[in-house]
């Protein structure tokens, strides 16, 4: 089942890295650098320099030594791209992207309209999902954003399934009419775009609408507009992810506490010299970091039924 397309692509599955491939250089947890591999170039990062020549021909997922430490070369995925992409705007993170794809009923073959393009985090997620026979039309009012994402799509082998349009969907509507399976809105005044979203959706097949808004007032107006435009099963949901960390928990007896205080095990080692019982430590999950995102936006989704002949 190993594929060998000639063009580098997020969808390709060669075992070894070729020139032109986009790789995600995993430096540390939370630090990943996406790079297009090109002979003669050198990547500079925390662990020093890494010559691209050194990457070509290696296996995906392999550990490589840089001048001052080692890194891993990962195959790009929608999630890794979201976590490492060059940010031009606030972006949608993986949890929201995942739910949006699901609410759009996105799958290979789907035709999806998106506005705005922003940094292209969700755009990549959609493009990868609708490939190879579907299409993403992404709209933004800012030409620098659409041209940047088009460039990225080209590098990532996604050109054939994507079109980026400079357009204000709130006043001029979407690039496609009567053909979309799903429309996604992340605009300040979604209620203005909803009538256009209805027009964009295929009359024969019907489709799905998803709108992302940080504020409740935006949601309230969007819901009214959706109902007025003929959407049904309108529902607003909010996703609040919570990240955990696995730590070693040490349960002391009162006697131990009285003797040595609440010092954590590693400090205890020095005190009790070898008498620390390893078995009194169990792995457990705690909420970490202590401060976390608690809101990104509300997701309002609705259905437009096929129109009766």
């Amino acid at each position, binding site marked *: *089942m*190993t*594929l060998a397309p000639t063009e580098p692509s997020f*969808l390709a*599955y060669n*075992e070894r890295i070729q020139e032109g491939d986009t790789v995600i250089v*995993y430096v540390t*947890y939370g630090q990943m650098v996406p790079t297009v591999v090109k002979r003669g170039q050198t990547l500079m990062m925390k662990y020093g320099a890494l010559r691209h020549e050194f990457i070509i021909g290696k*296996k*995906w*997922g*392999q*550990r490589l030594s840089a001048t001052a430490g080692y890194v*891993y*070369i*990962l*195959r790009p995925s929608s*999630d890794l791209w979201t976590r490492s992409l060059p940010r031009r705007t606030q972006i949608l993170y*993986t*949890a929201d*992207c*995942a*739910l949006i*794809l*699901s609410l759009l*009923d996105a*799958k*290979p*073959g789907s035709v999806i309209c998106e506005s705005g393009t922003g940094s292209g985090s969700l755009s990549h*997620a959609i493009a*990868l999902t609708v*490939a*190879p*026979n579907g299409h993403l039309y992404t709209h933004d009012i800012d030409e620098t954003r659409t041209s940047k994402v088009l460039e990225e799509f080209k590098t990532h082998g996604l050109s054939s399934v994507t079109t980026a349009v400079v357009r204000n969907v709130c006043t001029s509507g979407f690039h496609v009419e009567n053909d979309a399976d799903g429309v996604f809105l992340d605009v300040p005044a979604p209620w203005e775009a909803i009538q256009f979203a209805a027009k964009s959706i295929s009359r024969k097949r*019907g489709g799905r609408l998803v709108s992302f808004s940080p504020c*409740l007032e935006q*949601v*309230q107006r969007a*819901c009214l507009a959706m*109902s007025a435009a*003929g959407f*049904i*099963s309108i529902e*607003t*949901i*909010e*996703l*609040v*992810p*919570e*990240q*955990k*960390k*696995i730590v070693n928990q040490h349960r002391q007896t009162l006697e131990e506490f009285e003797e040595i205080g609440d010092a954590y095990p590693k400090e205890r080692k020095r005190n009790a010299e070898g008498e620390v019982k390893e078995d009194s430590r169990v*792995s457990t*999950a705690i909420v970490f970091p202590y401060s976390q995102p608690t809101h990104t936006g509300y997701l*309002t989704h609705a259905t437009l*039924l*096929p129109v*009766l002949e």
Partner: protein
Amino acid sequence: MEVESPPSTTSLIQAGEYLIVQKIDGEQSRIVRFTPKQKILIEKLKFTSDSAFGKPHGLFEVSNNQCFPMSVDRLIEELQLQEAPVATTLLDSEVVLSEIVEASDPRVVIAPSALKLEPEQKRQKLEMDAVLEMKKQGVSGQEVVAKLVEGSASFQTRTVFSQSKYIKRKAKKHSDRVLILRPTIRLLAKAYYLKDPDRLAMLRADQLALILQMAGVHHGKNVLVFEQTLGLITSAVMERLGGKGACVHFHRGAVAQSIPCVHSMNYNESTLSTFLPVRIKCLLAGKQLPYENNRKACNEEEENGDKIKEVKCEENVEDQDLEALARRNDRLDRERRGLEMTFEGKAHALIIGSRTVDPVNVLELVYPTLAPSASIVIYSPHQNTLVSCYDWLSKRQTINLVLTDQMCRVMQVLPDRTHPLMAQHVAGGHVLSGIKVVDQ
């Protein structure tokens, strides 16, 4: 997986299709295979399957055991009418106004401590029998609600909040508007989650979505799946592959069983071609094993509750033997390819959605031969199960390990009545994900 399904691009309802049936604003969502002459039942509403055939998927009105296509415009008009009388009654009736704790702003009327809790049955003059009689006579749901409101002794003394609640509750109960939709993964996930969260390992639709995204499932990927979620994860992976790549599904016994979510998606041959079921026995043995008994395999399929199979078993014995042979050969071929994916470093992602099986046990068998840079995503309703997986994986070469939990809450968005739902299903699980790497 040999169910003959209509192509999923058809836009009209056909006999043999699995469909999602739900009432407008209803609480249930049923997955039903529409066979000819079938009685479809949803929240006390009944109609025959035949009346739906040949119609486009969408909105229907039920009356006299038949369903009739209905335009959305009419539904929306009705919904607006339903909201309207509440406001009008309010402005006309001084009795009601004084009841609303004398709020000067008639728009905001929720007084949590002003709501009286009295048994409703007592105060309803219209008897249950009369309602049933009206329904028999073909009176529409709308009309029944109007009669019920008239008959309620307490209606005029309710707060607007409870009035509106009352109408909604009644409208829901007597609504004869039905949605008949083609199943989607999202709708299936919701229907099973509400119906039987236990058998689904509490997997919520939003968590399923996260699993797919963390595993990076898309066209052309090779994905290993061990799941105890009624085939939901498997089916979602298959849909995302879009006919290219592989969804290796590890299953008990001789054939894949208890995977209704795969069957009810009406997949076409192209999508079904990526489904590679592998017997757990073979996984444990590390190689393909012969089938012990053909007859037995056929019987075991019945466990599935899949009626087509049963019917086939009763068919002419010779035909059956030929068919069974072809089926077994296909099965063995898929299994061989599945085992190749598993053991020859060709799998780009591993998804475990476990309910009773320890995921560490699955990891021990398949992790070593995963392709480097493969994503590992493990779902469990029990956090401590994932803590064990974390310990196991962090001792191997797995990076980017993340354990997350997520809350998904529905908001009620109504003019002057916006708040999160007062109660909802909250059961769910946890997701651990990571990426396999190698030294060289």
